[in-house]
């Protein structure tokens, strides 16, 4: 494989991949009888062209940061956690219980408590698959898939039969009491004099997500635990040689991963919906896999790929609002972006290398 300068590898390659994905997508828009340039403009300006757009883009990105980090942490220990969906759902349950049944004096305290609850519930939902993997060798991929289904059933039961206010149609909890409502990004920024669209769902959780990125960075690359879990992920016999306890590491890693997935709930459940509704995770757990893989399991990479997916979501919503382009097209665009920036990145790299490296050879 050709060697590319680092800047090209980090910036040019993903960018070219993105462009390729969009060219294909726009061809598809053309095929469905719409104007591709208009669509593209609408998507980009809808997602990034206004603080309103950012308000949504950042909201989705916040979700994906959490689930992406969750997948990434497990990945560093060679554990494939497909259970983000279930863990985030359980995180939602934790948030709901804390917000519904305890009268909080102020949102800051409520946020702390909800963060703890979301993390603990998510972690506990990851605990059993982790324990079974560590002690019984049950493959974590199967158990986490199974736990997603079990979580869905559990939430269905709890929401329909337990937490739903009497007489409500919605399989959802009651609205959380006022003091537990989180300030939106708009409110925060406006209060310090930065104009930002109100009424968008991005909220203070974004800061928690950024903090989580920093936390994961330090955890993975600067702490002993991170050192040990990376070592364990690279070579289990070596981990044993170094005195790293495989059972302990597996369980701790998965619980951290589950907690991160669970934290997503403070964004969508507490920050946005302000109540727990059925199916609130909306596939973010699965998108987290793509986000983590595309971000190369590094917090900064995850931040960017979460932003990309957030922008795709919001851009897609704008398409849906102002054109008759079917929403499935947005799914196809997402697929192509994942494909070209994630799976076919080496193809793109080769193409870029042809352009960048050839001329240099010729000079020499």
């Amino acid at each position: 494989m050709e060697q590319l300068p680092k800047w090209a590898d980090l910036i040019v390659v993903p960018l070219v991949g993105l462009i390729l994905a969009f060219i294909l997508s726009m061809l598809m828009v053309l095929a469905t009888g719409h104007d591709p340039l208009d669509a593209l403009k609408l998507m980009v300006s809808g997602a990034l062209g206004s603080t309103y757009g950012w308000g949504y883009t950042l909201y989705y990105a916040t979700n994906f940061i959490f689930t992406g980090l969750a997948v990434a942490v497990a990945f560093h220990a060679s554990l494939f956690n497909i259970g983000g969906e279930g863990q985030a759902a359980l995180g939602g349950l934790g948030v709901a219980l804390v917000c519904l049944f305890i009268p909080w004096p102020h949102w800051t305290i409520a946020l702390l408590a909800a963060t703890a609850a979301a993390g603990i519930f998510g972690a506990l939902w990851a605990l059993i698959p982790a324990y079974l993997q560590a002690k019984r060798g049950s493959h974590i991929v199967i158990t986490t898939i199974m736990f997603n289904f079990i979580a869905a059933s559990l939430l269905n039961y709890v929401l329909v039969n337990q937490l739903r206010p009497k007489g409500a149609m919605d399989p959802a909890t009651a609205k959380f009491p006022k003091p537990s409502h989180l300030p939106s990004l708009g409110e925060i920024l406006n209060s310090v004099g930065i104009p930002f669209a109100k009424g968008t769902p991005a909220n203070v959780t974004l800061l928690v997500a950024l903090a989580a990125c920093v936390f994961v960075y330090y955890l993975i690359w600067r702490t002993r635990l991170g050192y040990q879990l990376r070592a364990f992920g690279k070579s289990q016999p070596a981990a044993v040689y170094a005195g790293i306890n495989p059972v302990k590491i597996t369980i701790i890693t998965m619980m951290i991963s589950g907690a991160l997935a669970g934290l997503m709930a403070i964004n969508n459940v507490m920050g946005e919906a302000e109540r727990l509704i059925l199916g609130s995770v909306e596939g973010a757990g699965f998108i987290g896999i793509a986000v983590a893989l595309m971000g190369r399991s590094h917090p900064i990479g995850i931040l960017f790929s979460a932003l990309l997916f957030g922008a795709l979501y919001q851009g897609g919503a704008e398409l849906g609002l102002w054109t008759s382009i079917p929403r499935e097209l947005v799914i196809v665009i997402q697929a192509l972006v994942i494909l070209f920036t994630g799976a076919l990145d080496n193809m793109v790299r080769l193409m870029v290398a042809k352009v960048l490296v050839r001329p240099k050879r010729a000079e020499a």
Partner: protein
Amino acid sequence: ADPAIIFDLGGKFDKSFNEAAFNGATRWAEETGSRFAEVELQSDAQREQALRRFAEAGSNPIVMAGFAFGNALGEVAGDYPDTRFVIIDMVVDAPNVRSVVFNEHEGSYLVGYMAAQASKTNTVGFIGGMDIPLIRKFACGYAQGAKAANPDTKVISNMTGTTGAAWNDPVKGGELTRAQISQGADVVYAAAGGTGIGVLQTAADEGILSIGVDSNQNHLHPGKVLTSMMKRVDNAVYNAMKDGPGLETGFSVMGLANEGVSYSMDEHNASLVSDEMKATVDAVAAKIIEGEITVHDYMSDESCPSLSF
């Protein structure tokens, strides 16, 4: 201003109320040659977004299908006093909102009544998409109707699943139908969106009768679908759009009386429903309208006299 319609997460082709809403809007557009704005949501967070965006863009009235819009509309309606909103399947108390709810239990009662009449095994089945209150409402009305026609009727009820896939799993729908058939059911009522396609198909294949839901699904398997419980979401949408920006707000119940719900009769099921049967059902319908028969609404006290969940 053009009207706008917002479809719920299931999408406008969900074989259920979204699709009915879409049909109503399309009918209006075709008849009047006008246009309407529309959007299919992908995320819960987009409810408020879509409402605000359409309202700001001047759409009026804005129609939405699905109880899940209740919260978002509650927040938004006050901010756009000049815009009229129509919400279906949910009540939102605001001066510029028309809330349309359907007495699905009444319609389900009628088809349940017919099911019991048509059943030779005294066993009828119900297949719901997901165990949520709305579906229980359908099931409960159906069971009451079946027992009313014949107190010995056994009602078997299944829910398809607990994830979103539950509404789009015709294969599982078919398998549930077979399971009910093997327990003796010879009429099955599906209230499960795309899953229902599989229910009706399997029922037709296995030679038993089925009952469609929401729109008239009799044509899907002529001579094999006993009837369909019509929930005229299409009419509600059509009317809203026809009434235009000046539409009357308030609370409107669509029941048997105003043909908001009904059972369908057409050439496809004429052979299945004898005149006699039709007469008794119509009589029952009349009694419900007059209040002589009260169909218990599951949502009124969250319990069902004829079926346990």
